[in-house]
């Protein structure tokens, strides 16, 4: 796993209180990992903080899965 993926996974595990093995490529934050809309706002903020990037609202809306997050951050960072 890439360094970025490992760091994203750590944030997801911490914020959503889920087991690490549940955070798979296609795992949806809301449908599979128990997040609500406020959790996803907080997750995006945590990604911004961790990677020193800015994720605009319209881009944030496209980040629905763990894989989406890793892909977006890899391209932005």
């Amino acid at each position, binding site marked *: 796993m890439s360094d970025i993926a490992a760091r994203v996974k750590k944030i997801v595990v911490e*914020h*959503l*209180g889920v087991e690490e093995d549940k955070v798979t490529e296609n795992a949806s934050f809301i449908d599979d990992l128990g997040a609500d809309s*406020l959790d996803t*706002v*907080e997750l995006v*903020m945590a990604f911004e*903080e961790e990677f020193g990037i800015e994720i605009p609202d319209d881009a944030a809306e496209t980040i629905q899965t763990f894989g989406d997050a890793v892909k977006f951050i890899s391209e932005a960072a």
Partner: protein
Amino acid sequence: MRRVVVTGLGMVTPLACGVEETWSRLIAGQSGAGPITRFDASNVVTQYACEIPYGDGSDGTFNPDDWMEPKDRRKVDDFILYGMAAAVQAVRDAGWEPQDKEGRLRTGVMIGSGIGGLTSIAETAVLIKEKGPKRVSPFFIPGALINLISGQVSIRFGFKGPNHAVVTACSTGAHAIGDAARLIQWGDADVMIAGGAESPISEIGIAGFNACKALSTKRGDDPAKASRPYDSDRDGFVMGEGAGVVVLEEYEHAKARGAKIYAEVLGYGLSGDAYHITAPSEDGDGGYRSMAAALKRAGLEPSDVDYINAHGTSTMADTIELGAVERLMGDAADKATMSSTKSSIGHLLGAAGAVEAIFCILALRDQVAPPTINLDNPAVTPRLDLAPNKAVKRKIDVALSNSFGFGGTNASLVLGRVTG
């Protein structure tokens, strides 16, 4: 009018997490005070307080993991955590976790706080200053709002009845229990989860109360002696933290399900001082009228009261309350016992009235009045027995609990043993 009884108790206090653990230490005359550990207190005047004993959950310590999952806890200020812990205890104690629609619709929640998420408001203000407004957590507002204890408890248990929260400073807990009892009397609910919670031990909380000259400042060398209601050497209150929650239930509802009944809410009185933002009037008129209203509602005479849990914060106002009680009681003052349990646990602000109502309920159950510790040299000669330094075994059929708050907001509860 429908009768209201108490069928469940829960508390987190500076003496312990848990009702029985707190009560036994209170009766033994222990103090919950010590140096502040919750934050770096080196810049505030008062560097001691009554803090909840955090730990692994054994021996009366408070383990946050026992009450809220870490991922949920991260999203709330501590006053919500404490309120949730006390509410879960009370609900379990009452054995009231209805799974049916009707039971849930007929159960409400009214748990308040005096100040709410003070710490998270302060921390978020600093965050905005340092990193800008875009870094504010989406959980800041729902984690700091006072009525979110009631909201969180209702979500956890599915209680869909009235959902409300009292905010009347140091009278919050007593007002919550009294108002919730009235909702049951009026038929808006059959069961109410009621009480108060507070987490004011932070730099902003201590600095704020220091600024209005309310806190004890002179006992850094011996914090356990700092809270000393009625004593001539008292110099202000000692900040506490925690929560108290009771389950109130309509009497026939409780009887029908064979619930354990601790006590009955016999009376509730309220008044306003219309005098000063932080001080009571010299004649204690507001407190007097609050007590008189509660007794009138209960249909009792002052001479019927056996035990009074005083507001008694260890400030100059102690003797004003004492005077009002003695005026109300007249010759019956010689037979009653009054104590301030704030001598042991400090002042829990919005939680105080609920925790102290629970102490009254346990006094009724065990026929013992908890002591006023550190009362070595009374500032005045009282007619009432103030239970100095030692619990008093005695007949207690009726107990009265006083709570008076900044702004001149007063509440009194009359609680009694259930007969028939």
